[in-house]
């Protein structure tokens, strides 16, 4: 495997000027009405743009109790400790047919195995198909992060071709730093935001099928959280667990899942972490 040669965060820095030019050109081509709208989107992202990552119940419980976020390598190491298998075997089991692509992508970058992934979020419940709890970092976390970059879309699906090979030119032109994330968001989703109400901008920018990927390194702990969000529909699913449990119509395993949700909610409350349930 080739030695790591690329610094993702440096590449993002190098792309700042080009990204701003791209945004200016895009904006210049808009009508006055749309210029006002795109300026509103830029302001919104600048003010409310946060790094978020979605977790499921057990992941959030572990995060709150251990105080540590685990990326795939750290999770595989923990799994290996639990099962007794080798870390690489654990990674292969977890990643299956995606193992090669994951390894190839991370190996291209300096510190790639330390990457944590999230999304740019301006007020929704994030990528809920992967996890019903959306952990939103404080603005101070991204402001002070030494290594944080945003990519226009999913790194593995959209920038790795069979081989696996990196589409490096595309990657280089689609990266943004924290200070320029609003220009990336506006050029990516501007056209779609014109057609919808402002309240829908957050879910246009970030949902399970389309998002701006955030890559960051360093620790991510419960004290870095601004809040945790859940969609109303996901919370309704949890309350339906309670309803069915009261009716004795669930299996024992499902009742334990319901009890697990209560434990996580209790932990959030005891940790003074705000839970916000959103229509998103």
């Amino acid at each position: 495997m080739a030695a790591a040669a690329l610094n993702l965060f440096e590449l993002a820095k190098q792309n700042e000027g080009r990204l701003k030019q791209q945004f200016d050109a895009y904006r210049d081509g808009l009508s006055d009405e749309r210029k006002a709208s795109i300026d509103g989107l830029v302001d919104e992202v600048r003010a409310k743009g946060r790094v978020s990552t979605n977790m499921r119940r057990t992941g959030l419980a572990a995060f709150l109790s251990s105080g540590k976020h685990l990326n795939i390598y750290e999770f595989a190491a923990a799994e290996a400790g639990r099962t007794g298998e080798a870390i690489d075997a654990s990674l292969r089991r977890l990643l299956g047919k995606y193992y090669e692509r994951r390894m190839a992508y991370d190996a291209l970058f300096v510190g790639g195995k330390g990457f944590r992934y999230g999304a740019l979020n301006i007020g929704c419940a994030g990528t809920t198909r992967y996890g019903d709890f959306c952990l939103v970092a404080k603005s101070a976390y991204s402001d002070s992060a030494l290594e944080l970059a945003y990519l226009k879309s999913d790194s593995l699906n959209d920038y790795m071709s069979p081989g696996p090979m990196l589409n490096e030119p595309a990657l280089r032109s689609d990266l943004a730093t924290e200070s320029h994330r609003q220009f990336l968001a506006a050029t990516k989703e501007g056209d779609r935001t014109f057609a919808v109400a402002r309240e829908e901008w957050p879910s246009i920018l970030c949902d399970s099928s389309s998002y701006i990927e955030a890559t960051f390194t360093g620790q991510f702990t419960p004290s870095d959280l601004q809040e945790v969000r859940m969609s109303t529909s996901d919370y309704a699913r949890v309350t339906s667990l309670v309803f069915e449990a009261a009716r004795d119509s669930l299996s024992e395993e499902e009742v334990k899942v319901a009890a697990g949700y209560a434990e996580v909610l209790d932990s959030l409350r005891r940790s003074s972490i705000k839970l916000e349930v959103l229509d998103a």
Partner: protein
Amino acid sequence: MLKIVAIAPEDGWAFVVRNGETLLIRPPYAQSSLMATSEEASEGAVQKYGFEALDKDFSDWGSLLEYLRGRLSERQKKEVAPVSEFAPEILGSAPKELKAKMLARIGKELIPNREWKAALLLLRSMQKSRGTMDDPELRNMVLDMLEDCAEGMLRWDLGRRKLTQEGQDLANQFPILASAQDPNAVKRLAEDVAEKHQVFNVGVRAA
């Protein structure tokens, strides 16, 4: 044929392919919990969100759910907490609209079906949950339904003589209703129901 392509065993979540369509299934395992999604989503789940890649076929939903429950149980605690212990925490963090929906379901599904145990368990949990009884609208809904339950139980499940007997501690049997209103309200309700709505004599052998 059904195929699990990605699984989070400790949470009971799985991406399932059915006739080329990718679905996400999560507890509670019911048709209404199935969510249509995409192959890309199942790939992303494995690549970045801790799902385990899997390639396992099932002939029907029953065997698939049995497998999911089996995987769930591998890492669960042995004991099951009573619903009354954990329900208030979940209901306490629920937004008002979901609390109101839950109450509406109790009123539409449980009380008419005389599922008193479930209805009372949920109403008591609702009463214990943070914020519910501080909201006048929700408080009234809870109290009205407790009355409905008390009335229904009296009509269908409890004997008139036993309940209207002097000295019977009805306030103790219906503490929520008794504490929310005046302690004699339950007794008056019992007497009223017994007087007006008696359908047959409980405990009296038919001629």
